[in-house]
């Protein structure tokens, strides 16, 4: 397959896509774990003043009855008022759309936002739900047997790897 795009470059491109549309009132919510890394970077780069939110969507996943409780043990933290807010959900990779479905359900348990958008570094195809990213600098076409993972090095830099499942 083609060479993987550099995650740092995609972060920069994503920030530029978002920049014309964010205001000081825009709130970011990163999805654990990769989405939080990207959201942290965007939050600094776009100089947003609202505190950064994070979500662990494992309580809302649709595969609980098949696979049990999955995912990390970090709590969700939404340190701003969701009601009437402009919120951008941030994740590293958009795939089936099921994580975003879970994230939307979770977000609405905190209140009724005015507008919700989605920012991802890469869209790898394979959607199973009618969900699309608002901001996405890179589309890829990966086989269902491959998994696109974002990893964080010790120096804080982000890198994509493809793993054969």
């Amino acid at each position, binding site marked *: 397959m083609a060479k993987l795009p550099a995650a740092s470059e995609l972060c920069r491109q994503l920030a530029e896509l978002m920049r014309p549309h964010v205001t000081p009132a825009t709130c970011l919510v990163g999805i654990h774990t990769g989405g939080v890394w990207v959201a942290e970077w965007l939050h600094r780069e776009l100089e947003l003043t609202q505190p950064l939110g994070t979500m662990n969507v494992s309580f809302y996943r649709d595969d*609980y009855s098949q696979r*049990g*409780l999955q995912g990390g*043990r*970090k709590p969700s933290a939404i340190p701003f008022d*969701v009601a009437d807010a402009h919120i951008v959900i941030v994740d590293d990779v958009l795939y089936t759309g099921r994580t975003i479905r879970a994230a939307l359900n*979770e977000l*609405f*348990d*905190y209140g009724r936002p005015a507008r919700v958008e989605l920012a991802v570094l890469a869209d790898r195809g394979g959607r199973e739900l009618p969900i699309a990213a608002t901001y996405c600098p890179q589309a890829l076409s990966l086989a269902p047997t491959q998994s696109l993972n974002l990893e964080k090095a010790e120096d804080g830099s982000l890198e994509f790897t493809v793993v054969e499942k």
Partner: protein
Amino acid sequence: MNSNPQLNKHGELQHLLTIEGLPREIIAAILDTAAPFTEVAEREVKKVPLLRGKSVFNLFFENSTRTRTTFEIAAKRLSADVINLNINTSSTTKGETLLDTVDNLSALQADIFVVRHASSGAPHLIAQHLAATGRDHIRVINAGDGRHAHPTQGLLDMYTIRHYKKDFTRLTVAIVGDVLHSRVARSQIHALTTLGVPEVRVIAPKTLLPTQVEQMGVRVFNDMREGLRGVDVVMMLRLQNERMNGALLPSPQEYFKYYGLTPDKLDLAKPDAIVMHPGPMNRGVEIDSAVADGRQAVILPQVTFGIAVRMAVMSMLGGA
């Protein structure tokens, strides 16, 4: 059925019957899973959809409004349907056996049984019966059986200690009071030793200690002042008047004098020691109000953490 009926063949938690014999990794996983559930209570919608469509039956063969309520809240915050049965007031008085009751409720599509029973081993018996009759998809949680175990209380106590003290392997913990009648004490001792607490002390008059309690890996003190010296955590037990047969104690006043936690006795513990109590408290019997309401008490946080720990246990059992 394998040797530890709480675990399936992959070593995953199947039922929660007792902390005894539970591997350290499982206890740690329960505590880790509980952490994100503490945050759910702060949301506008204090509910997550994990157990939507599942039925949790609270089978209370022994009354306990408080424990039943905490399980009920935990199950409802997981979106389960909760059915409360106080069985001492219903079928068994008509002569139905424990297992007949379980069979009938299984036929009502139960997913989780939360069982409180005055006889030690009743939840275990139910789990065995479910396995023997091909219904091992139904989970059992022990909410207190006789003098045997009260695992969720033990786990929420561990969560509380970890929250305030972080590292179990540097702690000295004292359990004070009616150890003899206390299933809570047994669960606490098993949990503390499994998690690597180097020194667990029990402080009680000889009449309220089980024989050979030392074999559980604890140091025994009959003098409370001596036992409290330098401890990081003081875990008080409730004096279980309802479980006492005959005269084990002279009087509540006498008990308070020697084994009641007062500010001057607490001063012998480390200055940052925390004070815990499983509730309900007998003020002026095992604990002085000045301590119960004081800055070192973490008794109300215990109650709050108890919901998250019970949510964690149910969500670990209720999935695939």
